[in-house]
């Protein structure tokens, strides 16, 4: 039993296999001799990332090298992924500081709320994307690691300049 397949009545110019083949071969040949060069040779060349790129976090520090964070607890509160672990402490002068400050970058959704909410401009998203690690555990960045990172931090979105210009 033969299978009957519907064939739409298209004009010959569209339905002809020959013309389509020759046209296609001309096109591929054009691309071959004159390729659109779009490849970026990654480790050697990098595309610039947007100033608002939200990558792994950085904790900024004061001049004497201590984290700016005052342990106010706003970022763990606002974090929708619940991935910031904060244990605040207080020293003899009554300055609050984080005893434990850990961000699980695996659970983080990189929403940037922590940076927006921070009253001390301490925690920041980073313009950085090379985050490979050998174990899951090493994706939990502690305070030491967060302060030691040096990559540029991202800018917040400015409502008066929505396109970022």
């Amino acid at each position, binding site marked *: 039993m*033969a299978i009957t397949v519907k*064939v739409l009545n298209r004009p010959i110019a569209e339905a*002809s*296999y020959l013309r389509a*083949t020759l046209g296609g071969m001309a*096109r591929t040949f054009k691309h071959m001799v004159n390729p659109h060069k779009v*490849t970026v040779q990654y480790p050697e060349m990098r595309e610039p990332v947007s100033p608002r790129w939200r990558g792994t976090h950085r904790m900024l520090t004061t001049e004497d090298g201590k984290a700016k964070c005052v342990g106010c607890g706003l970022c763990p509160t606002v974090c929708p992924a619940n991935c910031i672990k904060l244990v605040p402490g207080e020293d003899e002068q009554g300055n609050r500081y984080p005893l434990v400050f850990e961000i699980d970058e695996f659970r983080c959704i990189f929403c940037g709320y922590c940076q927006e909410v921070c009253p001390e401009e301490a925690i920041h998203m980073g313009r950085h994307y090379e985050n490979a690690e050998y174990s899951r555990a090493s994706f939990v960045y502690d305070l030491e690691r967060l302060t030691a990172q040096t990559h540029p931090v991202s800018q917040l979105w400015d409502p008066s300049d929505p396109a970022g210009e």
Partner: protein
Amino acid sequence: MIQAVFSHGGVIDPQTPIEDFWPFTILTIVKMVVVFTVYMVGVALLTFAERKISAWIQDRIGPNRVLWKGFGQVLADGVKNFMKEETYPEAAYKALFILAPMLAFVPAMVTWAVIPFASPLPTRWGLMSMAVADLPVGFLFTLAISSLGVYGIVLAGWSSNNKYALLGGLRSSAQMISYEIAMGMSTVCVLLLAGNVNLNSIVEQQATQGWNVVLLSVAFLVFFVATYAETNRLPFDMPEAESELIAGYHTEYSAMKFSMFPISEYANMVTASALTSLLFFGGWDIPFTTWDNVPPWTTLKTIVTLGVFAIKVIFFLFTFMWIRWTLPRFRYDQLMSLGWKVMLPAILAYVVIIAGTLLGLDAAGIARSSRAFTGILFGLNLACVGVLLFVLDRGRLLSPAQSRLKSAELSRLRQVASRSTLAPVTGD
């Protein structure tokens, strides 16, 4: 000892074929080793060329990391394939499973034994033919051997004991049978014209009468399409068809046994390209000059003709890749209908036309080497190609073409579609 073997009492004319046993044997072995080496290196480089060309066509860069400009990729791939683990499916029939990759590869290579790749080379011991074995029945040999290649694929598919592999193997054999006939028929035309099955005389015939591609264009077109089907290259790579059959006949293969299949595919491509240039593009003949086709043979002629032959083969290899990265795969029924409903009738009719014309021209007393003979055949061919292309263009022969939709039926379907609940709601 060797000295004794090679020194000869009498003076030997370098323009007569080698007759002594030892020089002949040793030179043949040298030719075998050289051809095998060049062939294998060429095949390895082809895999690289394929990746590069596909990359360029797709606006990519392709392998460019290993050694100079990525040429080391060939070595890296080879080493990787040797180091990988060989797996054997539990249900496979081991003996054939191991034998199949070799069976796929060997016929492609054996064909090269009879392909003349340059004009004869004069040596101290006589004239050396530039084919490993200059068989008097060279052409029949290539036909016989090249159809053996399918066994590797069929056995690979069958012995893996995997349904996709089996389907791939079956498709391969069906496809091979369908296109082998058209291919054989198209070469009948060449043999009619050459009047000989020795590959060197086919080259000579083309040197005197003009290349077969202009004398037998329809045969060339059919042969060309059939070689793609025979080598399982796109658009005819039904046996592999990864979107339908995982990887077809080599689904179960791993490591070096797997890479024997791609290697044999490329080996087949080289052989098919060589045959195409030999049968239809004059082999090692240089066009528009007879300097290279007449004695006395010199080393220079050998080198130049070798270069010309290499250029032709490389051009066809490039075409293989060019077409692969342009055309999508046929559907299986399209493949069959193209083979049986288009190519076979066309080539059968063409054989009759060519045979009749040759008979008529011979009866009219027009010499085969004369300009008039070439001219008449050429004119006839233009007409044939014109008719064929016109029919192919109009006939939509690659659509399934089972039932063309009548316009009444079409409007009925459109109405059904417009009444459908899925149609966009207009108004309120």
